[in-house]
């Protein structure tokens, strides 16, 4: 989940890509626009084929067409948009809480030795504890309402964003700190103009991961106390053995996550633009 670009020596528009030693034609045809399309056509073709072969019953591995109609059905009765709205707002709230705490804490543990000493062992211990395992605890602490959902989502987001920020802070190339300190920058200035930009690629990598995790933990978060949202709908579809709906919802989750990830990635690239030049 690392997205650190090294400053390449030549860069520029006419810099030759050294990476793919492939017939230029093939690479050319498969431009960035065509690429997802080709991918999906292939995946869809395989899927249709497998479900047409009926190795497993349609109720368990539904065909693309029944999934499409389940999708249409949810669109029609309005469940689709209401679920989407509520889940996105939960993911967003949880993400914002988790990510801000994560960045703040990462800054602290990365830069202040005392805090690092006290908290890091504890954080290291928390990292292997999954959010689903904390759902019951969350309910006890935050109630069955939105609180526990925010907790579960932000818990996961927090740990990841913290970890990335922490390491970004810790491994800032000495040369930048040396330059900054020799140029008499105050600690405040060093922090905002050197430490933060230098760690920015790592922080963004963490944030991007955090976004993915906010969606990943939606399902766990909506296990209890929810009666709407994509995660709840997934549970419900499972209860009523609506496999077609389940697939439709999983695809919804995937598409949603991918879109948000792309947006975050684009924003990150704009902000941390110097990494590519």
């Amino acid at each position, binding site marked *: 989940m690392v997205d650190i670009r090294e400053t390449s020596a030549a*860069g520029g528009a006419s810099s030759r890509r050294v990476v793919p030693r492939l017939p230029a034609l093939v690479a050319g045809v498969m431009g960035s626009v065509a690429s997802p399309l080709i991918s999906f056509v292939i995946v869809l073709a395989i899927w249709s084929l497998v479900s047409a072969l009926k190795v497993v019953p349609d109720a368990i591995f539904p065909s693309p067409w029944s999934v499409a109609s389940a999708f249409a059905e949810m669109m029609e009765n309005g469940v689709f948009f209401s679920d989407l709205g509520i889940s996105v707002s939960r993911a967003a709230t949880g993400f914002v809480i988790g990510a801000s705490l994560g960045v703040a804490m990462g800054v602290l543990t990365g830069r202040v030795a005392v805090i690092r000493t006290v908290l890091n062992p504890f954080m290291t211990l928390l990292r292997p504890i999954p959010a689903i395992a904390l759902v019951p605890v969350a309910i006890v602490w935050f109630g069955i309402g939105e609180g526990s959902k925010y907790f579960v989502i932000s818990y996961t987001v927090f740990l990841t964003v913290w970890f990335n920020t922490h390491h970004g802070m810790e491994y800032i190339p000495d040369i930048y700190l*040396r*330059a900054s*300190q*020799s*140029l008499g920058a105050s600690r405040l200035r060093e922090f905002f*103009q050197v430490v933060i930009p230098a760690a*920015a690629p790592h922080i963004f990598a963490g944030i991007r991961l955090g976004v993915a995790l906010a969606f990943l933990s939606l399902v766990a978060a909506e296990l209890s106390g929810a009666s709407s949202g994509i995660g709840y709908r997934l549970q419900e579809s499972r209860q009523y053995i609506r496999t077609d709906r389940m697939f439709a919802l999983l695809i919804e989750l995937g598409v949603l996550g991918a879109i948000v990830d792309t947006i975050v990635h684009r924003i990150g690239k704009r902000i941390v633009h110097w990494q590519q*030049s």
Partner: protein
Amino acid sequence: MSSNIAALADEGRVEIDHVSIRFTSKKGDHLALAETRLQLEPGTFTALIGPSGCGKSTLLNALAGFVEPTAGQIRIDGRPVDGPGPNVGVVFQQYALFPWFTALGNVKFALQRFGLGKTELHERAMAALAEVGLETQADKFPGQLSGGMKQRVGIARTLAYEPKVLLMDEPFGALDAQTRREMHDLLLRVWEKHKATVLFVTHDVDEALLLADHVHVLSRAPGRIIRSYDLSASRPRAISRDFPDLLDTREEILALLKPEPAEDRGDVASVS
């Protein structure tokens, strides 16, 4: 310029007191700098010259507070150096520009300690870039600059900052002869104005002779000072018959740097 911290003639005394530096690794110890004693008086210009790998960068790093001496102590104005600080400006061998700032932004960063207004900050930074001939490149990011340009931004940044002690590690290595000459002028101008204490590492004997008050020659690794020269010729200097002392010193240093019994292979720019 507005600040006059560096103008106090008695500030910027550097004492290198029996310093030696050793790197330890899995494969054992490595003495990078043998015991060295040196004192730089406030406002003097000192050049260090020595073979590759003899520990020049290492000594500079110690002065800047980046590396801790294994033995001995370094003091600036009587206070032991215990880390990088605003008194000591460094022009880095690897430029050390901030890639997230433009050339202009890098210079502005150094100027912020003067607490200038926005317009003045911009103007002073542009002026500093103009002095190194990069006013047209102000908005480029380091990744878009040529090697020599990066080096000049680094110089502009450190000079703009007006430190009491100025350490320069082969600052003009990537520059062509003409630009290098312009940089010499610039450096001497700034130095005369602010009377900073300058320590200058170079491979170019002529450069050392053109610029410095004192030249110290280091031995092969592990480096220690094997000869020192005081140059009293007035500036601007030239390596020519007008400065016969410099020509003599030049011959001597070149001979010192030759490890073998000086066989004349004729490929030295032997000035007749």
